[in-house]
């Protein structure tokens, strides 16, 4: 059940794609060096680990949603899949070919089947080209449909909901939603199987967004397209996706069928993400749990589970056996000291604030008491070091990369969750609504 190797979910293993799987991403990694100049060789700066060891499959004809906050690496992942940037490691199998290893004309040939739509419909269209030639461009590049390109372009414009008579107009003569439709027509012009959509509706107003989403779904049905749909908006993701993958700081943390993921999230980050969306209904109940702190730097990501520094469910180290409340108090205290979120004028006040029921017993209590002393003496850094090394760094979350398949509650699709709470020897986590 548990495969702690970090190869991630649903990899078909052998590296081949079967009939149902159109794309298989295996251990894909992308590191960016921080500087490209001559000096980088001299100073040897650590790389930005934008995407790390990501594996998943995309099934033929489905929409796989990829969601995450800005900076989590979702766009880099998409670009690496399409080889717009070269991967540092890993493989991308598309209908049997490893895109990561293809080069030159073979890669060009394959790219015909993979298209991409970008977020900003303005800057992804050449302002000096007319719409018709823009749609024809990919056909020209691949030497397809010679002699019938204009006809096809007009046909496609109509398919995406534009007037074919707009063939001779310039992009600036269209609204944002219409420009995104031009992008769709261009992507479709070479008859691809797979389209990567990078935040295609994020720049659009909500009413226009709905129009474009509906068109995308119609086109998918008509042409049998497969979408990898990237967005930060969970409502959009829920609406359009068959399955959803959640990314945090360069790694996948959870992947499951849409209903399953939204109704039974198994990763604390997914839960936090879902809890923080404002629901457009004032009668919606349920308390919002808000995540503390900021996303750590991808230059030096936390060891083990990358979410552990903010995780509200960090597992206590094996050597301790505090009850849940005491452990929660210790965890909060350690983070508050590390972030210096309070003033420590009086040791007693701090103690009552964080440990109203008293400090823990045993070694844990000793460390907490020392930290309280240090904080009162204004030795914040020593206190933080002490607390972090004792409580956070010794947790399994800091020492092993999690990767577990969990039993789905809805449907029978695979459900991957990168969280040590799913270790067999750990008690099952409380339900999400707890």
């Amino acid at each position, binding site marked *: 059940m548990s495969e702690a190797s970090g190869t991630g979910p649903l990899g078909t293993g052998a590296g081949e794609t079967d009939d149902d799987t159109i794309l298989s991403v295996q251990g894909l990694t992308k590191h960016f060096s921080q500087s490209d100049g001559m000096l980088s060789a001299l100073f040897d700066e650590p790389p930005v680990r934008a995407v790390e060891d990501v594996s998943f499959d995309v099934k033929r004809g489905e929409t796989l949603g990829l969601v995450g906050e800005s900076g989590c690496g979702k766009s880099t992942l998409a670009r690496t899949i399409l080889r717009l940037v070269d991967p540092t490691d890993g493989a991308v199998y598309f209908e049997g070919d490893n895109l990561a290893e293809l080069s030159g004309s073979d890669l060009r040939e394959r790219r015909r089947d993979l298209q991409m739509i970008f977020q900003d419909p303005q800057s992804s269209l050449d302002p000096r080209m007319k719409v018709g030639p823009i749609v024809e461009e990919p056909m020209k590049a691949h030497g397809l449909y010679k002699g019938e390109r204009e006809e096809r372009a007009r046909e496609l414009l109509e398919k995406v*909901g534009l007037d074919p008579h707009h063939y001779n107009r310039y992009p600036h003569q269209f609204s944002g939603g219409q420009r995104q*439709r031009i992008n769709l027509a261009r992507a479709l012009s070479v008859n691809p199987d797979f389209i990567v959509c990078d935040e295609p509706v994020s720049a659009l107003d909500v009413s226009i967004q709905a129009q474009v989403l509906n068109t995308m779904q119609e086109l998918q049905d008509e042409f049998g397209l497969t979408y990898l749909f990237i967005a930060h908006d969970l409502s959009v993701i829920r609406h359009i996706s068959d399955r959803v993958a959640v990314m945090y700081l360069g790694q996948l943390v959870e992947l499951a069928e849409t209903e399953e993921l939204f109704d039974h999230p198994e990763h604390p980050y997914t839960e936090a993400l*879902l809890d923080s969306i404002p629901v457009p209904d004032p009668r919606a109940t349920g308390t919002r749990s808000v995540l503390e702190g900021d996303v750590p730097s991808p230059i030096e990501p936390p060891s083990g589970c990358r979410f552990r520094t903010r995780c509200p469910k960090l597992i206590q180290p094996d050597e301790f056996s505090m009850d849940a409340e005491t452990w929660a108090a210790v965890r909060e205290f350690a983070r508050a000291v590390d972030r210096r979120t309070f003033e420590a004028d009086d040791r007693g006040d701090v103690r009552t604030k964080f440990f109203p029921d008293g400090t823990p017993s045993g070694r844990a209590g000793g460390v907490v008491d020392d930290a309280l002393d240090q904080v009162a003496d204004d030795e914040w850094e020593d206190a933080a070091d002490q607390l972090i090394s004792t409580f956070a760094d010794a947790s399994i979350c800091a020492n092993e990369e999690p990767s577990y398949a969990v039993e789905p509650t809805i449907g029978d699709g695979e459900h991957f969750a990168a969280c040590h709470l799913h270790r067999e020897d750990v008690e099952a986590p409380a339900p999400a609504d707890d």
Partner: protein
Amino acid sequence: MSEPLLKVENLKTQFFTEEGTVRAVDGVNFEVNEGELVGLVGESGAGKSVAAQSIMRLVEEPGRIVDGTVTFDGKKLVDIVETPDGRMEESDEMLSNREMREQVRGREIAIVFQDPMESLNPVFKVGAQLREFIELNRGVSESEAKTIAVDMLREVGIPEPEARYDDYPHEFSGGMRQRVLIAMALACEPRLIIADEPTTALDVTVEGQILDLVSDLQDRYDTAFLWVTHDMGVVAEICDRVNVMYLGEVVEEAEVDDLFHDTKHPYTEALLRSMPRPDRSVGSLDPIKGVMPEAINPPSGCRFHTRCPEAREACKEFHPEYHDVSDAGGAPHSVSCIKYESVGYEHSDPLETEATGAFAGGLADMRGDDSQEAAGVSGGEVDE
């Protein structure tokens, strides 16, 4: 009920461009009471930001406030009256620019913008900017101001505020910069904060943090907020009362629960229906047809009639009157739609547009945001 803290009456702001006069805000009325959180919601181009800027008199050329009154705590921030010879002029009661600067902006009303990077000066340290602002507006010494600044930073949840005090804006994340701006807005304990899409550029978890912070601070300081946003989720989450804007006009105003559960205006209804929901799966979306027409040449009659699913012939002719339609004793609920007036809507024929489903042009079936032209109502070649 006592006088509202902020009262906006018949506010009109226009931009005089080469292509013509853009009527960005066209006769808008709304109020904000003491300690209340009022939403101003609409799509881009609805005029909500211009309305917010007009209150602070921050509209820049070629824009100009051409009519209306804005009263804040008895002071006339804007007061344009007609002179006997028919010209529109500022009244004597209207505050001078200097009075605006010295008495109102920052002290009484603070504004928080969408982009925190543009609102902070990149070449000065965050703490110094905050300190200077407090020093100027509260008349305290430099060292006192610094103490207040550090306290404010801690208050809005900046970790290690003493150390971060000496950082530059680029060293802060987007969410933290927005926290700094909120700290700055709160530092002078204003009675009203105008927040112009303050969480739009932020990630959802960060947005959650900021929304929590705002409701927490509002409880503590009893500050009133005018919250400008396009996000109905945010509105539902934090607002007490909501004004919905469409093409320069407020079309509906109600308490937040009524707006969502007793929606009166077809635009509000269509807006709510077109949204995908985070909390449940929706079969297929029901988008609003067409795009918002340009404010330079707004449609006749009701401005929403070109996209309204319930539009009838009468909607083209009569400009709806914005009025209260609530039941006696109920909370006020204003709407501008002739459905609620007696100008013959019931006996009028449905309009033939794509939005009403009566238009049967072959191409238009496929068409989405292009329907304006299909329905033959577009103002010009460029429907952007």
